[in-house]
């Protein structure tokens, strides 16, 4: 058995070794199962640490969204604006933006307010509604009956995901919200202008449907809550997909669900295990 110190192995796992050293370690790993197992254990430990810290951060981001979203009478600063400001403007203004974005009352009247600050207009009344608002308004037209009657089964989740990904042109999440009390009912394709939008529908034990909309595109990766009439929404973007979770549910519940979806890893696409039976016309036609 070859003796390699933890010092060397940790440096290897962390990518801190020079190329020549890395190759030497890899050569040993090919020949020594004990050392390979130790490296696996170190990698496993690091992966769990990263996941733990990521989970804490996801909670903090949820707090930021929850604090900044329902403040119609106060100063509203988009988190993206704050992040851009941190990079582009002076330290004082950047910190002020960040603090205000976090929702903390800070009385520092001697410090000039930064130009990026916007006084709060009522939410949901922007002049040109985006696709999220359009989807939220369309969502209000769905009822419980529209999902419960005469629908084909979509039991093959892998295939549904594959179909939706083909429609969007990018892989996306099809989360299982059963542990949270929302069962998957069906998925279909909609359209916003000329761009495809997918809709994944769930039903809870009561109330109207919950929908996860997805559209190809970039955006802010932070969870952002909005309210359009009775429909609450949470938006974010990741992996080249902009997501919108919408439903007539409590905003805290919606935010928790969105956090859960965001934390889920994006699974690689897998081919369908059995021949495809079209689940509905929208899926079949790609729009």
């Amino acid at each position: 058995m070859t003796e390699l110190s933890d010092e060397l192995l940790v440096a290897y796992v962390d990518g801190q070794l020079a190329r020549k050293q890395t190759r030497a370690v890899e050569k040993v790993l090919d020949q020594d199962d004990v050392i390979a197992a130790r490296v696996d254990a170190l990698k496993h430990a690091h992966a769990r640490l990263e996941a733990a810290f990521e989970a804490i951060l996801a909670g903090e981001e949820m707090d930021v969204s929850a604090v900044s979203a329902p403040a119609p009478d106060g100063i509203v600063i988009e988190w993206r604006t704050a992040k851009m400001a941190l990079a582009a403007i002076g330290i004082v203004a950047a910190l002020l933006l960040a603090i205000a974005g976090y929702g903390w009352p800070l009385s520092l009247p001697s410090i000039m307010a930064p130009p990026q600050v916007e006084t709060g207009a009522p939410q949901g009344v922007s002049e040109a509604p985006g696709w999220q608002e359009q989807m939220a308004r369309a969502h209000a037209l769905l009822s419980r009956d529209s999902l419960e009657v005469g629908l084909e089964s979509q039991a093959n989740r892998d295939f549904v995901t594959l179909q939706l990904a083909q429609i969007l042109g990018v892989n996306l999440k099809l989360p299982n919200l059963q542990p949270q009390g929302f069962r998957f009912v069906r998925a279909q394709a909609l359209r916003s202008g000329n761009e495809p939008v997918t809709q994944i529908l769930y039903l809870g034990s009561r109330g109207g449907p919950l929908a996860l909309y997805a559209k190809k595109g970039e955006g802010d990766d932070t969870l952002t809550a909005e309210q359009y009439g009775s429909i609450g929404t949470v938006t974010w973007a990741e992996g080249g997909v902009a997501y919108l979770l919408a439903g007539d549910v409590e905003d805290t519940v919606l935010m928790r669900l969105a956090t859960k979806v965001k934390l889920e890893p994006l699974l690689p696409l897998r081919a369908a295990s059995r021949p495809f039976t079209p689940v509905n016309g929208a899926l079949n036609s790609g729009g």
Partner: protein
Amino acid sequence: MMPRLKRFADVLVGARDEGTSLLGRALRCMLDEQHRYQRGTSLDVWAFAEIYRQWLFELRGHALPVAQAKIDDARFAELFYPEVDGYLDAPVAAFLAGLPAQQRLTLLLVYGEGFNHEDAGRVLDVAPDTIAARLVRISAALADRLSARPPAPAAAIVETLYPEGLRGSL
């Protein structure tokens, strides 16, 4: 960046509400003493370092700083928001809670923030070699614990509460 600063403060003090409080005080200090910020310094490195300095400054005011720095396991576990996403890696949470603050932060900066050893050292006011040495000790200890090997001696993870540069003045 604010969620990242909040996570740093939370992991440092081991509780959500105290982390918020510490971060608020540190931010006020940053605003008051923003002249110390040097252009070219990464803003997040500077901000993390200021929070850490604030914590050290306040800790020195306590009669028993070591006892003061200890954290509660249950409150630390709350940082993982298990009620939100169902994620709580209990063994890892317990392991982190049992580490000295400097070692928790070392892990956070390197594996949570992706900092290199130099930047992590700047935040914690230690040499990059110290960061590397801590990572070896802690990684080995965690890997042992998760794979049920005999744990490393407790003395291996004892840390001073004070950064190396300040020891002589205390």
